[in-house]
């Protein structure tokens, strides 16, 4: 067992922290984020810098031009991007689109797209959500009908992250089965400018970008299929696991900043002739924030290593993680806003932005309630008789 960061991870972290200090300084975060309210919602020059610094290549193998990192490396990146409130679309492109390519793509698909992605020349995202589905990955009404060696896609996907700056969409559609059947879902790689693709773009509450994307007889070839026909759900679930780990890392980074910023703010602000932090009601709440952060971080590490090592508990702990991220994230975010008083309500400080981003993360890839339900289904129940010997508990 070993929970130290490697030297490479430490360097990666340092380089992101340096970028954040330069481009996302804490005292300009409000103005900075406001500037990104319009499309594409981020700075292209920053994206190029991500490429130049090698961050876009973190999880990809060296033979495709990546640096061959693992999920722990992605965790390091996401945590630091979270701390920085960075808006560049690392999550949709590298985590969602990248995972789809690496887990589902064939050699041709990977070779034609991944090197460009790593160089910053190509972006993608995942179009999987539909309104009636809420958080259920298997609920897919969009259809893909085979005709003349092509597939025709019809349907609407909702809340597609950064679709307005993506070159490719990975789209889940039904090649068979009823709307909620676990079989019959297939993932397709669709150029964002394909004929019949229509988008309505909008900013999200966390100052990112999303789109409603509709598909009207969008024709793609068989080479657009990611993975096997009809078996897309397993692929979606694997992508979702990685998405949850990444969002978990981003959340833990933000939660840490929240208890630190709150400690600093309340230690400096004097009311009733004492620093606020000296009041036990404030101090203990900060401790509770710290405890929740450390707990969530521990589960993040556990789940990350389990997914990386394909442990049997991985699905269980990923559900547990997303549940805890939602619950702890809300507590920590709300506490920070509360303890900052009026200042916590403003766009000027980071805390409010972390708070909103944490609320937004809870609403993606299943909220805290949804994952508790999923955990409950997988929760191990030991065999054997009841045991009245409760000692030495």
């Amino acid at each position, binding site marked *: 067992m070993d929970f130290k960061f490697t030297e490479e991870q430490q360097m990666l972290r340092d380089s992101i922290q340096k970028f954040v200090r330069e481009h996302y300084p804490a005292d300009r975060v*409000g103005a900075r984020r*406001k500037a990104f309210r319009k499309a594409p919602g981020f700075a292209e020059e920053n994206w190029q810098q991500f490429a130049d610094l090698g961050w876009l290549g973190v999880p990809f193998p060296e033979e495709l031009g990546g640096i061959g990192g693992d999920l722990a490396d992605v965790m390091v990146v996401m945590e630091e991007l979270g701390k920085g409130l960075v808006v560049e679309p690392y999550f949709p492109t590298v985590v969602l689109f990248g995972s789809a390519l690496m887990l589902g793509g064939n050699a041709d698909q990977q070779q034609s797209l991944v090197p460009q992605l790593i160089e910053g020349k190509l972006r993608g995202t995942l179009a999987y*959500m539909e*309104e*009636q*589905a*809420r*958080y*259920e990955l298997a*609920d897919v009404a969009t259809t893909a009908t085979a005709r003349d060696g092509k597939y025709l896609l019809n349907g609407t996907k*909702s*809340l597609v992250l950064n679709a307005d700056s993506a070159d490719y969409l990975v789209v889940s559609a039904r090649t068979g089965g009823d709307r*909620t059947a676990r079989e019959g879902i297939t993932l397709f790689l669709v150029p964002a400018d394909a004929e019949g693709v229509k988008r*309505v773009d*909008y*900013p*999200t*509450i*966390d100052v990112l970008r*999303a789109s*409603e994307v509709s598909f009207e007889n969008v024709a793609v070839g068989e080479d657009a299929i990611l993975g096997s026909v009809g078996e897309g759900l397993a692929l979606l679930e694997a992508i979702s696991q990685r998405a949850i780990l990444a969002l978990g890392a981003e959340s833990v980074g933000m939660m840490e900043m929240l208890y630190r910023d709150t400690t600093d703010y309340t230690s400096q602000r*004097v*009311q*009733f002739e004492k620093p606020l932090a000296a*009041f036990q*009601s*404030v101090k203990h709440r900060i401790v509770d924030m710290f405890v929740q952060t450390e707990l969530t971080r521990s589960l993040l590490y556990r789940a990350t290593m389990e997914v990386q090592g394909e442990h049997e508990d991985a699905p269980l702990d990923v559900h547990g993680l997303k549940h805890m991220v939602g619950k702890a994230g*809300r507590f920590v975010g*709300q506490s920070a*806003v*509360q303890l900052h*008083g*009026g200042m*916590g*309500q*403003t*766009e*000027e400080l980071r805390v*409010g932005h972390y*708070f*909103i981003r944490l*609320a*937004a993360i*809870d*609403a*993606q890839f299943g*909220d805290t*309630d949804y994952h*508790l*339900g999923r955990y409950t289904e997988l929760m191990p129940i030991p065999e054997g008789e009841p045991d009245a010997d409760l000692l030495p508990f």
Partner: protein
Amino acid sequence: MDIDYTQEERQFQQQVRGFLDENLPRGNEMWSKRDAWFKSLQAQGGWDVPKWPAEFGGPGWTPVQHYIWDRETAGRSLPPVLPFGQVMLAPILMRYGSKEQQERFLPDIRANKVNWCQGYSEPGAGSDLASLKTRAVLSEDGSKYVVNGTKIWTTMGHMAQWMFCLTRTSSEGPKQEGITFLLINMKTPGITVKPIFTLGGSHHVNQVFFDNVEVPVENRVGEEGKGWTYAKGLLQHERSGIAGISRTLTALSKLKKNARSVRVGDRTLLDDSSYKRKLAETEIELRALEFAELRSLADAQQTGEPGTASSILKLKGTELQQRVQELTIEAAGPYALNAGFKEAGPKFSKMGMMMYLNGRAATVYGGCSEVQKDVIAKRVLGIKD
């Protein structure tokens, strides 16, 4: 003990319902028929200023009548009044203002003609409001105060014509003394209003700067140095309004309807037992708190004092407001992300998120929850520091 309304109270309830059905403008008419609405309220005998005492033209309702009014109006959209004047300043003017001040300001407040804002908090004086530093110095000839300093979190400050303001006229003695209550015309030279953008990008609060702002001495309410005493009573008033129990019951009722419109596969969110249990837990507490408010009103009616149950209203009321807001964004689900696009997801999702964000302030303003608990410990439980 008797839970039921008296015969008179029931009649009043019917009267209110009938009146609202007949006179309340709906939907698009909310602005066009606003004046007619206020006139009809006035014609009822002061219903336009329900909290005002009869001697100032109010209806002179009992506490239970106020409760009935709140309950009956909470579920309907009423044309907005400007709360800072009517609800917050007016009681102070009535009690501590001079006859001239009352005649000068109350009619315009009642007519919703003049927008007031409140100048209390300062960057260095939040929970510890009495440590405020905005300085008012009386000119040598005694004709005016010269005000310097800054106020913050000034709701509607950018739209107000007047501010009622706590200023420091003396630094000697306990900090609660030496505070003076001034009425300041916002057009006076030397005043700058700077917007503060709050979570989600709203602008309704401001910071206000005073640079040698001259305020005629006749705009001082009551005596110099007594402003804290005047304001404290008003803060109590503000707190019971902030509890907003009737509003929260209405919000919960809307939430149930909205949750029923949220699709979860082939069912709705109201079929989800764990979500429904959360609604139920909240509703049970709300029904308890509603009755705590009634107990407090009944006590007030009989003894003139609101009783101990009242102390929990603001603390618990704001908590339950926030709980309903949380449950609203949970109902919106993925569409909690929706910040401006009306066609994505259920219609309530956009406003639901803004309410959630703005709602965080409820446990901060008007005495933050932490200070409220200190106050209950001291005043109700007699715990010494």
